[in-house]
């Protein structure tokens, strides 16, 4: 099975994000980055499928120089090679623009399966995988927790709302977007980190991929959200704050 995993590097979950001076994006200096969480689950699913059925796992991502680090981490966990689409203007491309870059880069690979995480932790659009399927003319299923290879294709477990699930059968090649929690994530081993250094990472530029960059949807402004409620912050040491909260729970919320 030849499996491609589209991954994204995003600001670390605990990062203190601030609006930049132009209010167009966030302040990018001294941000720490990490692999998007549901993409980590997509990679894990791909690695497990390869261990069961053989084949190759290729990771692909778009972004500036720094995303090379995330590719190396995926290679260290067990991916066989990487594709880095070099572009410094990711923020100005809409979801279709980014998916077009990915589609152009992976099309020549003729993979059996394409996986992505369900959604990114920064923009949270949750569209890349589904658009990719349309651009490549492939069937897709989204919010997938479990993938099983069958004689005719795949059987997948899809998450529905409020604790419900559904099984879907689909032929390959196909695109799946992976929900977090389906597998236990692995860590890179020391050997894996060593090996990653010698694995192939192919670079491609947006110009080489001949992808039109004109977006139909523009992110015009980034701002801090307004509070829906006025939160009463209880100050003081942990002990003082705890005592103040117990007072509130007793006399105002009346649950004690």
């Amino acid at each position, binding site marked *: 099975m030849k499996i491609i995993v589209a991954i994204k590097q995003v600001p670390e979950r605990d990062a203190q994000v601030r609006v930049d001076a132009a209010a167009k994006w966030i302040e990018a200096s001294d941000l720490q980055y990490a692999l998007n969480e549901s993409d980590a689950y997509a990679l894990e699913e791909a690695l497990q499928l390869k261990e069961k059925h053989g084949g190759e796992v290729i990771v692909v991502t778009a972004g500036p120089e720094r995303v090379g680090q995330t590719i190396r981490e995926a290679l260290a966990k067990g991916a066989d090679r990487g594709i880095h689409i070099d572009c410094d203007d990711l923020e100005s491309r809409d979801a279709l623009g980014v998916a077009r870059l990915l589609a152009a880069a992976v099309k020549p690979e003729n993979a059996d399966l394409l996986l992505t995480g369900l959604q990114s932790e920064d923009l949270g659009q949750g569209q890349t995988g589904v658009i990719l399927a349309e651009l490549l003319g492939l069937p897709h299923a989204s919010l997938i927790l479990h993938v099983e290879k069958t004689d005719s294709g795949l059987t997948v477990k899809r998450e529905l709302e409020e604790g419900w699930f559904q099984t879907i059968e689909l032929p390959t090649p196909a695109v799946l977007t992976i929900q977090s929690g389906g597998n236990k994530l692995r860590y890179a081993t020391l050997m894996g980190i060593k090996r990653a250094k010698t694995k192939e990472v192919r670079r491609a530029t947006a110009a080489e991929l001949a992808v039109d960059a004109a977006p139909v949807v523009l992110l015009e402004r980034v701002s801090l959200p307004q509070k829906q409620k006025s939160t009463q912050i209880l100050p003081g040491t942990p002990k003082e704050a705890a005592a103040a909260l*117990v007072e509130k729970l007793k006399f105002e919320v009346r649950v004690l």
Partner: protein
Amino acid sequence: MSGILVVQEAGRNRISFEALAAGRVLADLTGLPLETAAVGDPNSNVFVETSGPPPAAAYAVQHPLLESYTSDGYVLAFEQLIRKLEPSYIVFPHTYQSRDYVPRLATRFGQVLIGDITGIEPGPTFVRQLFQGKMNGSYRHQGDGPCFLSIQAGAFRADAPQPGTFTIQPFEPEIPASAIRTKPGAPFRGSAQTVDLGSAQLIVSVGRGIKDADNLPMVQNLATALGAELAASRPICDNGWLPMERQVGSSGQTVAPRLYLAIGISGAIQHLVGMKSSQCIVAINKDPDAPIFEVADYGIVGDLFEVVPALTEAVKAAKQ
């Protein structure tokens, strides 16, 4: 280009009516007429029981191959309806179903869905959340094509449901059986639900901030002292630290207890939709900018490993 088409989801009436309400906001801003459509029978309750003033037109999209949801079937059906009506805006409720097929449908028109929006402002510009709710982004659509939007649950206030008294036109798309490539199975429940968080009066809920499964007893002690049920946000259940049935949020249970005490939960929208109707929300978090503080009544900004034990002691003392 003529109007605003609101695509409702049968069986998901509440959020469908909220999408209708969002469509009306857009109609007021643009002066365009409002039309609605839904897959299913004209007698489907999403039409029979409607919300607000009657739409200019309503379409029941019908085909035997649409009886079970598939993205291929829905994309084909709505592609044909949109080509016929040529709306300027198409508004969907943001559900697991719409996020499965609408990005694909929009791509077919060379368009991009502006998904999960929480507000519509003059322009029009569309507001949606970024960075798990830590920021808002204002988006604008440009060019001549139709603009695809989906509406976050709870973001727009639906009018009270009332009997629908307008004419519903059937729309029968052409769908060859060979166009449906996926075979969906019937929905099933995950595990046996032995914990009914929905009826709990007091809930102590724990998130990623707890860092390790070994730290859970500290939170359990607080729950026990309060007489509360223990619940969690998704990452805790993903890691297998607590069973899935204790998960609160869009993929878990929806709760509205008298007290919801959120410990180390940042408050991503997927969690907030499951608990924001709680009567009193208390948040303990080290990050003063965490989105959970946007819905909390009371907050303690601090290290949960210090605050929780102190709170447990204070609760025990108060109960003696």
